[in-house]
């Protein structure tokens, strides 16, 4: 199929996603990723720690682990959709970061993303495509934060890479 041969214009992709997202907003709620990731963290922690997880108040008061949380399935859907799409377009192959510096940056970056999402209750998708379009005050605070963060991150990136 032609669709799986050429790179799609991101504007077209995002227009399609936005229209689907409006339907999702009416049915269950806007597209978000962080909430589902948190629930998966909770489920994984529960699987590893067992009943010990009840000693951590966060998992009682904020996110009691449950499989019946729709946001988890958005993330799993993205994984599935991307896998199918990559296989059809023959773009699926294992890519392993080559340099130690990349592994270090990804590890630190991943940790910071996880901590940031939980501190803010929102991820980047809910910031740009959830809270801000709903004109939530938190959206404007979060957009300010993420742009400032990306700018500081870019300075570090520049230093590390020397570009």
């Amino acid at each position, binding site marked *: 199929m032609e669709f799986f041969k050429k790179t799609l214009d991101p504007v077209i992709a995002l227009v399609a996603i936005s229209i689907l997202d409006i339907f999702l907003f009416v049915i269950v709620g806007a597209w978000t990723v962080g909430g589902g990731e948190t629930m998966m963290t909770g489920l994984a922690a529960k699987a590893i720690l067992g009943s010990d997880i009840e000693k951590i108040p*966060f998992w009682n008061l904020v996110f009691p682990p449950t499989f019946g949380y729709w946001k988890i399935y958005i993330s*799993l859907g993205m994984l599935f959709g991307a896998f199918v799409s990559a296989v059809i377009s023959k773009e699926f192959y294992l*890519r392993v970061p080559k340099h130690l510096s990349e592994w270090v940056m990804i590890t630190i970056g991943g940790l910071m*993303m*996880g901590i940031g999402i939980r501190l803010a209750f929102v991820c980047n998708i809910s910031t740009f495509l959830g809270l801000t379009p709903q004109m939530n005050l*938190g959206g404007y605070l979060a957009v300010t934060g993420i742009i400032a963060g990306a700018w500081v*991150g870019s300075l570090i990136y520049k230093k590390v890479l020397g570009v």
Partner: protein
Amino acid sequence: MSVLGECLIAFVFGSCVGVLVQRSRFCNTAALRDAILFKSYRNTKALLVSMMILTVGFTGFMSIGEGHPMHFDVGLNQLIGLFIFGIGMVLAGACTVSTWVKAGEGNVGAMWALLFTFVGMFLFSLAWSVNYWPPAPASMTGEPNLQALQFGFANASTLQEKLKIPAIVFGLIQAGVLYMIYRAILRRERRLLKSAASASTEAEVIKKSPPAMGICH
């Protein structure tokens, strides 16, 4: 709607997003990073178009009381949290969406980033259990709570209630502002192209693609 139905719809939505993002290589991190570092706006434009459509769509449904807007008190934790997130996403070279999509493409770095996002969330859950900040959604009142650095809850629906003007009006204004930013980017791109055409050495500088580093490049 039943829980199963919700999860099923979410999965179908996620799958469509997965295909579209995989095919277009859209990345939220690149939308910010490339605009800041490389003056390349491919992803930034897509992000702005999406925000315009969603602003009109969401506020439109919110003015007739439909839809499920996010409902929790906001405060300085959004600013600080996304600041930390912003640094992290540029270092990792990926955002929440692209980690899932790139993991689906077989990118081991993206899987590693996801793993450590989970670890970060778990570490935060331990820290939260000590200081209980930011406040749990169950204890939120919607009113400012300055002691906890919380400003309360406000969105297009609360504006409509307070000012008796339909939410869509504010939505259209916001979409207009976003459109102006979009136009400014288009103008900037044209200017960059023009200066590139007049000086071929500069063209190389502008066309230089971002270095292959991080998950999205």
